[in-house]
């Protein structure tokens, strides 16, 4: 879906990274904070249903970053079974402009990814605009690869990358994988778009 972590412009907040506290989604009182952040920083409008869908079903995967009572960043995710893999999905990641570039986004995402790993996810995925250099660099440093390019994924005609992180698995010989995937060769080969706008 969306990541807003690059740029930031001129006004930078002065703070020490240790002053940032990270909190797991704790309930309804956090929802307006998340919605305001996302509304403010990201271009896509989301209805309230979309937010509730994520934070109600997977509260343990959403985190907020606070600097002295002020909410400065958030990450919203989900996880579940997708075509016989259990995988996590990063739906929204935002840090307010004056606080960017200091590792807050990385910390938010990492916390979520750790929960996903502990919950048994095999991989984590998200989409990012090909022009979103900040996001691509961030996820690249965390070990995500650009698995696919999605032509004109966004309404404004911009392409997206599907980014994927694969957790280390017990080794399976490729020929066994081929047998397991024989069915999927036969099945329809069109890709499902995770989220459509």
């Amino acid at each position: 879906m969306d990541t807003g972590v690059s740029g930031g412009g001129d006004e930078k907040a002065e703070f020490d990274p240790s002053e940032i506290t990270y909190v797991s989604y704790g309930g309804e009182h956090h929802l307006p904070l998340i919605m305001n952040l996302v509304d403010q920083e990201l271009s896509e409008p989301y209805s309230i249903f979309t937010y509730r869908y994520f934070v109600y079903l997977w509260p343990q995967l959403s985190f907020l970053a606070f600097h002295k009572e002020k909410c400065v960043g958030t990450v919203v995710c989900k996880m579940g079974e997708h075509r016989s893999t259990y995988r996590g999905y990063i739906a929204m990641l935002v840090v307010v402009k004056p606080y960017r570039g200091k590792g807050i986004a990385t910390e938010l995402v990492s916390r979520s990814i750790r929960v996903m790993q502990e919950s048994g996810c095999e991989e984590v995925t998200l989409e990012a605009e090909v022009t979103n250099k900040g996001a691509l660099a961030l996820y690249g440093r965390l070990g995500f690869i650009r698995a696919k390019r999605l032509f004109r994924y966004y309404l404004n005609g911009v392409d997206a990358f599907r980014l994927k992180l694969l957790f280390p698995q017990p080794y399976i010989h490729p020929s066994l994988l081929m047998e397991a995937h024989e069915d999927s060769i036969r099945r329809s080969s069109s890709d499902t778009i995770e989220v459509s706008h």
Partner: protein
Amino acid sequence: MAAAEASIFSGSGDNSVWTDVSPLLQAACNGLQDGELIHGDNFNLYAAMSALEIMDPKMDSGMIGRYYSVDEAIDGGAAPIPISFDRTVDVQCTIDIMDHLLACEATWHKGHSLAQTVFSCIYLLRPERTTSHALLHSYSSVIRATCKAVISVVSDARTHEEEDLFTMMYGLNLNGEDEKCLSILNAVEETISRQLRACRALSARRKVLEDIEPLQNNPMLEEGYCRAILARLRFRKHFYHVLMCLKRPQGRGLQLARKHVASCISELKAIRELSGQHTACGGQTISEDRTTASGRQPVGFDASLNARLSAPTPPRSIKILSWSEAIEYFLKLLQDLDIISSCSLENSLDCVLHFVVQFQKSQPDLVARAHLQRLLLQDGKLFGREAIFSVISKAATLPEVVKNHDIEKMECVIQLGQLVINLLRILCANSAWQRRKLGKILQDWRVTYIQLELALRSKFGEPSGTPSGENICMNILKQLLVWVEEKVYWIASRFLMLGFELELYSTSEYGMVYWYIYVVSVKLVEKLHHRISISNRVKCRGKKKRVPGKDATRDIQFSPTVLFLQSHICLAEGLTMMLAALRNEKMILESPTPFNSDQERFFQHFELLQKAGIPDHNSYQSFEGSTKNASLSMLAMYNHFKDAQRIAKEVKSSFSDDPERLSELRRIEQVAEHNSVALSLLCRVGDALDSSLKLSFEFSHHPHFATAVVRRS
């Protein structure tokens, strides 16, 4: 709601009845506390994302609409006929409408819905209204016929890409008498030509030969307007002809299409010139966003009217391309259609594959690519002329006798034919989608290979009724197997290279990618070499050797195609080793990633290849094994880049009449040269790299092979 109010809205639906649900919503609001949620089982993420908040202008497109229906808009005077009773203004506005429609059409081609673009034109939505206005009527008729033709070719292509949105018509009526549209257009063109002749005669003080009413009132502007309109009408006429010519089966209309393309291009350029657009002098033009040559807003367009027709969920508003962008788009489209029309119908499969790959380098859009696909594949035949088995026989250089053989009817051979057709279709798709499909079909090709192998083995085991017959069948199968393997490696190679074009690899992954490209290319050359040697053996069998003592195998070793690929192999190997050496000697530092390692990323990038057994052994360990001992000093002794340079130079003479291959070889030489120099520099510099110098890898000379660049930091 009162009955009177209800009737206002009845125009928008057929059997819809409106009810006021405010009390119900109020009760619902009171019934739930903050934070309470009703979750329906089938209310999934898709439903959540499709939901919209009423009256939020970002989501509720009805908020920005002025009229509720087309009829209401017409009643409100949004699309007057005539546009103005002042004939000069009427002509000006007509030109604006023509220009805006061109911009809408280009926007549609670029991936937006027809309803929000071309059919945001109220005149097009009610074609019967324009019959009294010759210009508007003729222009809209040809636009509808054109849209219909374009939808038809894109539907035929059936690539099921994301661009599926393109063909959705949502109940818009595109039917009309297409054949008539050209005669209507010609009639109007004729009239305006006569008007132009008349006004020129007048200004030259010559006698006016015929009594004809001028186009509009202002004699000073008459010539300009006549020429502006004529150029636009002629462009539409020729463009429609291009589409009709390209539609003709078996490529029969290609030559004529090229003539019409040339006319289109000259009319577009005339349109641009006549509008006084001085792009070269960099003068301040009216807003660059303008969708008309004049800069005025066109009369008669409203994108929100189709809101209920356009999509399953209310559409977001879109931005129409500017007029100059639209012209650029059509110029590029016409150039692409010209290239397609220049494709030789005699081409072998290899030539066709090469043609398509080259064509795709200019990043053609959907409409052009759909035309290419339709030209290549009709009725399951290449160019609609040659059956696919015949195409494969020639490509695999199977012996003539195969024509009378039952092998064509074998299940696995039929499947192979399907794979080839599917491959051609995929290669015409946009590169992002194409790469994904190429990765997926590798397994299909592998399965067919296995089936051919099984068929061959079963022939081995059969009692030899007709020994010669069985031998022929076995030889054919053997040759097919070699050819199929070669194609599999070709597909794998293309899959890997496209990753660079699509920017899927990060710098830290280049090493493993070049290694994989190296491994796959070596196999490809091996199979190609094998095929060429078999075909040469077959050729020489029947011929008398013209030059006594000349060895057939020596010819094969120097086959230009093989050498061409060999230069790529050396380059790939050189890059693999250089990157590995730099890593081993800590000259490029990569921080470890917290959640996984290179092994996972290797597996992810090459999973589809691994599943298809390309190559057969456990590749990450092979990659590690091949590269762990790489060092700069070792590379100083054995320089793959020098080899690449040498081979590229040598083989150039064999491609003297092939400008594309020549420029490719030149690029290979450049990459090899620059990397060689960088390598020597890095060997000398050693540890000093950290402090004063910065190393990066850039695609300055070749889209797939990177050049190492050392700069002062």
